[in-house]
């Protein structure tokens, strides 16, 4: 039948269009395939991994990257890496207090109004490493280290992208001129054509990043004895950043399961009512 053939052809055409991405002109590498336990409707954060990831952030990332949307209390709130049932109020948590107390933040003296430094409390924002954007750029060769509060949501690929960037510093291919203060990273979006002297149809994927390779073996010592490989650090800090981007994600999924169960039962009841009410109507 002509119609069936037409329909099949149409369906195949639509499917191939949707399935096949058009050939883009420039691109970066797809993020590496990494497994994270918090993915999927039932996924939960590995609390030990979030704790280790926080340590990586605090000891490595925090020297350049702010996390302005987070407070120290968040670390000890329900679902956070340092939550304990004994301390339902995160501001009273000894963990949040201890972590905050190690950081000095600017304030004003309550008597004189003079600028002073004091130990942070759980109610304080994560301390920003630079006073302002100009200072941040001045210290980083003109580049602005992005705020990491929601970075896991703000990049295509999310945590897998972060992991790939952090572990993706290969030797630049021959023929690629890397500018001073820049580093080649195939997972970084960019267009390298004007820095490439090799064959024009083989421009390397990726772009330049102003951050040098940070995570090296044993850069951070993990308190729980986990072997501190670069991959482990990257995986843990990606987990931490995923948690930080949406601290309520676990609560959301748990609520979702209850909502789904309720709605599916409700739908069943509605369908049964529908069948019963319509049983004597020919339609």
């Amino acid at each position: 039948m002509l119609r069936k053939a037409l329909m099949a052809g149409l369906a195949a055409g639509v499917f191939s269009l949707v399935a096949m991405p058009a050939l883009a002109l420039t691109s970066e590498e797809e993020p590496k395939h990494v497994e994270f336990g918090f993915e999927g409707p039932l996924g939960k954060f590995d609390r030990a991994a979030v704790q280790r990831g926080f340590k990586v952030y605090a000891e490595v990332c925090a020297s350049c990257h702010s996390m302005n949307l987070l407070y120290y209390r968040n670390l000890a709130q329900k679902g956070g890496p340092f939550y304990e049932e004994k301390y339902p109020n995160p501001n009273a948590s000894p963990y949040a207090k201890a972590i905050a107390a190690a950081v000095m933040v600017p304030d004003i003296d309550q008597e004189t109004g003079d600028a002073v430094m004091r130990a942070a409390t759980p109610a304080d924002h994560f301390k920003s490493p630079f006073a302002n954007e100009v200072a941040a750029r001045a210290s980083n060769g003109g580049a602005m280290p992005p705020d990491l509060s929601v970075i896991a949501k703000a990049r295509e690929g999310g945590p897998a992208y972060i992991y790939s960037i952090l572990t993706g510093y290969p030797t630049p291919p021959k023929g690629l001129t890397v500018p001073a203060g820049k580093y080649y990273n195939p997972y970084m979006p960019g267009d390298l054509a004007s820095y490439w002297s090799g064959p024009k149809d083989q421009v390397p994927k990726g772009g330049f990043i102003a951050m040098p390779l940070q995570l090296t073996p044993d850069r951070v010592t993990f308190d729980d004895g986990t072997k501190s490989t670069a991959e482990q650090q990257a995986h843990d800090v990606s987990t931490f950043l995923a948690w930080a981007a949406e601290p309520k994600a676990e609560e959301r999924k748990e609520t979702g399961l209850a909502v789904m169960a309720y709605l599916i039962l409700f739908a069943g009841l509605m369908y049964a009512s529908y069948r019963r009410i319509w049983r004597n109507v020919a339609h």
Partner: protein
Amino acid sequence: MSGHSTYEPKTGIERWLDARLPIIRLGYDSVIAYPTPKNLNYWWTFGGILSVCLVLQIVTGVVLAMHYIPHGDLAFASVERIMRDVNHGWMIRYLHANGASMFFLAVYVHMARGLYYGSYKEPREVLWILGCVIYLLMMATAFMGYVLPWGQMSFYGAVVITNFFSALDQVIPGLGSAITTWLWGGFAVDNPTLNRFFSLHYLLPFVIAGVVGLHIWALHVPGNNNPTGVSVKSKDDVVPFHPYYTVKDGFAIVVFLILLSWFVFFAPDALGHADNYVQANPLQTPNHIVPEWYFLPFYAMLRAVPQKLAGVLIMFGSIALLFATPWLDWAKVRSMRYRPTARWFFIIFIVAVLILGWCGGKLPDDVIIPMGKNPDGSPTGFSVVHLSRILTAYYYAYFLLVLPFVKNFEQTLPVPDSISAPVLTEKKG
């Protein structure tokens, strides 16, 4: 709302009120006794689903407005504060954001149903036009709502859309720029723009609610269309709205809520764009500015035309065609169930709009079928912009050629004498 009322006040209070403000009578006639064709299928449940969507958006939106700060420096952080520190703020915001997407999904199904079953035809032209007005208001509301979180895509979306008007500079030099400056409240998208968008985003849903009232009024005068397209002829053709359709719509609404909940609780950012979690930065344009999925077909039409004013006109024209549809379709038979040729053109139309949506999400120069290479090694050939042009042409042809003229070549199938007739003779309608 129309016809002979069958409401009989039973108590003294009801009789007293009925003589002064017959509001119970209005409710009774509209949602209890309202005679509804008994053969409505599930495509007809989307009207009820849409009213639930509107209420959901207004309720969640009013709560969000209690916590949101419409200021260029504070808006982004205030949205994140809702996500982090407001009790169940994440749920309210995700319901609102995904609710908007589901609202559009439902409205597209609702419109496609109207187009397929000829619900725009005499005597329902005003009903259809009011629906088109609601759709336009929805688009304006959704666009301004998307600007409010003040992320990168919010900001550059606002820049792109408001710049449509600057195309008028090609008609009268200076006119377009004057309009955009007036819209922005300055010489660029900035804090005043955000503030007025917030104000209008709060206002327009209530305008929508008002037009929905008119839409339902205009529905209840001629009554529902139905899958056969045959008008109601006797009492055997109809059932009272309650309980027959309250329960059927109710079931469909709960199923629709399951879909909404799946997005809200398990994939809340799947329909959004990562760039909108980056705070707006007027100095850094994103590589790839794309609107929300429900605007992508129109975005593809806009970019299919190389000339800016023409592109804007083609895009708005595609919506203007919807307003004119009742007078473009010259066929006598309402429902495409009995129009075998028109039905095929309709199916292709739906597929064309879906593929236009796909095109809207790609870069115009992305190559679909490579045919050789540029000197720099990039592939050339049949690209997204070429495909968009073909599909836009089909979109226009559907309204301007297919709807008026296909009846001349079409052998319609026998139309039943009444709604009850096919129900009694065939097993499935």
